[in-house]
């Protein structure tokens, strides 16, 4: 196990360096840069924009900028946002709660509903339920999230008036109930896609397990169908789901770009889009590294958890 961990850490470090070099280069290769948003300001001159670029150190060679960025990062300095002048970690921390709240609740919904649909679909294969679930999943996967979002707002906010048309809470009311009220629509809309993915995986995994010898043996021994399902089938079918969850962990923290935009949710997805739009290099790089670390960590955790719960797998 220690050898495995050491190995993985080494791999991860190399991976992070590669990701950062690619990210930094691509970002800086885009012509224009952070100054272009001021190009059309009345009275703005190219001379002023050149001066600003120089003050921000943007006119130096890319590799000098990269090495400086790495050097600072190694000293715990993630840089300062061009856009609002706050340290990158502060900027990220200002958005992380909103994302955690939304992604957390939608993930809980997605896993609970998706697992149930998947299992039921597998145990009632080719039933009306199974067909409906399959078709439903295809629809959920093929229709863009923003469409569901806008239709949801139109029906439940503008027409019926049951749910708010976005935002995290009503300004002036910060009660838990108010948060929950605002949370319903975005988390359900976001969960739709994840339910679809989750239920398809779960159905396949369950079908795999159901046809295994040990399930037949259990049935032959007279174990009740319910017990077979709960103890033998579901437990084993969930194993590949752990890996899936590990892969999806970074998505939980980096947010949902589209859903956050439609529901004016002040999370990390919005932050990423905005920072990209403003060419706010330090924040974009910060988010990139943040999600790279999460991706690596998610996979690592998934591997370890699978090894812990499945004695057949050894980490080496």
């Amino acid at each position, binding site marked *: 196990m220690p050898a495995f961990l050491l190995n993985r850490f080494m791999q991860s470090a190399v991976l992070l360096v590669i990701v950062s070099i690619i990210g930094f280069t691509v970002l800086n290769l*885009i*012509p*224009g*840069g*952070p*100054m*272009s*948003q*001021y*190009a*059309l*300001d*009345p*009275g*703005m*001159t*190219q*001379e*002023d*924009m050149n*001066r*600003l670029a120089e*003050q*921000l150190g943007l006119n130096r060679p890319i590799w000098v900028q990269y090495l400086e960025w790495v050097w600072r990062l190694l000293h715990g300095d993630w840089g*300062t946002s061009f*856009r*609002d*002048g*706050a340290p990158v970690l502060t*900027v990220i921390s*200002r*958005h992380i*709660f*909103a994302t955690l709240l939304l992604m957390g609740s939608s993930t809980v919904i997605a896993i609970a509903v998706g697992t149930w649909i998947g299992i039921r679909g597998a145990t009632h294969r080719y039933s009306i339920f199974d067909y409906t679930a399959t078709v439903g999943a295809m629809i959920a996967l093929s229709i863009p999230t923003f469409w569901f979002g*806008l239709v949801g*707002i139109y029906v439940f*906010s*503008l027409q019926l008036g049951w749910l*708010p*048309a*976005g*935002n*995290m809470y009503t*300004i*002036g*009311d*910060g009660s838990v109930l108010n948060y929950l009220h605002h949370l319903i629509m975005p988390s359900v809309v976001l969960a739709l896609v994840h339910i679809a993915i989750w239920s398809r995986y779960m159905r396949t995994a369950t079908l795999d397990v159901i046809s295994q010898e040990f399930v037949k043996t259990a049935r032959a021994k007279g174990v009740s169908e319910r017990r077979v399902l709960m103890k033998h089938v579901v437990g084993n079918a969930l194993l590949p789901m752990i890996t899936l969850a590990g892969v999806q962990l970074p998505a939980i923290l980096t947010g949902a770009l589209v859903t956050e*935009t*439609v*529901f*004016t949710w*002040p*999370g990390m997805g*919005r*932050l990423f*889009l*905005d920072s990209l*739009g403003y*060419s706010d290099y330090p924040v974009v790089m910060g988010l990139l590294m943040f999600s790279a670390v999460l991706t690596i960590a998610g996979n690592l955790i998934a591997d370890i958890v699978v090894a812990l719960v499945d004695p057949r797998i050894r980490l080496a």
Partner: protein
Amino acid sequence: MTKFSKTSAGFSRRNALRVLGAGGAAGLFAPHLLGKPAYAQTPPATPTGRVIVGLSQEPTVFNPLMPHIEVDDGVNFSLFDALFRIDPEGNIVPNLATEVPSQENGGISEDGLEWRVKLREDVRWHDGEPFTAEDVKFTLELILNPDFRAWRTAGHALLRDITVVSPTEITWRMEEVFSPYMSFLTETFIVPEHILGNAPDVNNAAFNQAPIGTGAFKWGQRLAGDRLELMANTEYFGEGPYVEQLIYKYIPDMTVLYTQFKSGDIDLVGQSYITPDNYAEASTLPDRDVILVPKGSVESIYLNMEKPQFQDPAVRKALYLAIDRAAIIDALNYGVPSPTETFMPPQSYYYNPDLPAHEFNLETARQILDDAGWVPGAGGIREKDGVRLSFANSTTSGAHLREQAQQFLQQTFAEIGVEMKIENLPPAVMWGEFWGMSQFDSAMVGITYLIGADPDVTNRFHSKAITAQGGNGSNNAQYSNPEVDALLEEGSRTFDPEARREIYFRVQEIIREDLPFLPLYAYTQVHGRKAGIEGYIPNTNTRTESWHAAGWYWS
């Protein structure tokens, strides 16, 4: 986490409407919540209620001297004051100053070089410190400090010998006569010397995250990515404020911005306002006031005058004739914008109304090209002396209305034997060097030409402002006309509005004749607010709906 914190003022909008100020008979109308509010209201005696402004971009820059975008301007106007302001009619009026200096009142010397500004003595910063001439001096010097990331420096760079005569009087000398500087000063917000003067690094000062100004509203709190809360400054020296809380809510999508206006989540649609396609529906919404407001910017096709295709005036004339402008305005923009022939905003004092009107006439366009010797060549595209009348047109990719307008142009240009290719680019690329260094053939662009209401356009049309030719400015069309150069120089040395008017009328005539850009329309914004918000006056001479939020109140 700050996200949990409740706002200190627990008013709901309804309460805000109910709690009418001691301002008189308004109380009689208190239960009118469902109907149209009563008219002829007076503002409340103490700040009451809250206005939520929806913005499609997030204000993030709160040091008003640092590079910022339009939505930041709205916040600046509420938090800070400048020496002067421009009113909706284009008059420059005192703000922190007690009068507007002129050659008549002796504030500006006869030669136009010596300026003397007298300041109010009753102004205090939000932290209680008195405002003095030292703050003004500090602000002007900070803009020119090479270590400070100042926004634009045009005009300020001419300042010499800034001298504090007394706490309420300041003088300076200009390196050369520059009359537009008065307008520049209306957008130069004064920052506190006693705070920023001590900051080790002004670029990253704590002030920039929680500013202290003299304005009608004080800094409340910022919930990044969501909103900004400002509180009434009850000690404000000027008119208002009448609302207790001013909130800027960030709504990152134009459709959602409008939806939240309909649903009532926001009280007022700020930058970038209601899209033209929603105008018809918006004006029928109950309990909403939706108005058309002319904006100081003009949509046009910029021609890069250094490209061989555009050097013949006949080509530029023919292209202008081949634009089906009515279709672009009515079919694409729902008739919201208005036609124009010039860069000058139609509501400006300097707007020349007598310029020849555009006509859409393909026959004349063909005739002009024929006469100029441009004959159809391969593929029906005209050519002359080896130059094909084929060029690219670029704008921000993903701007749907512009992309549709491009297709209109492409079709009608093809009918006169001109090929226009559409090559759009992402915003950071489009408005980077490609635009700044005039690398485009032609561009579709909306430009605000004036700073404040000053008619000076040296930056856009003087030949010394061509960056691609080593100049300094934003003459991206690479337009060069000695007569215009001379007129612009004279205009920026002249203080008398009557005399300047004549100069800029002539400038507009020449530019309309030369056509370095083909005007499509003058922008018109669709502003919307809940019925019941009184004191809302749009001001085309500023970049923001919030230039005077101090005057807003709920009836």
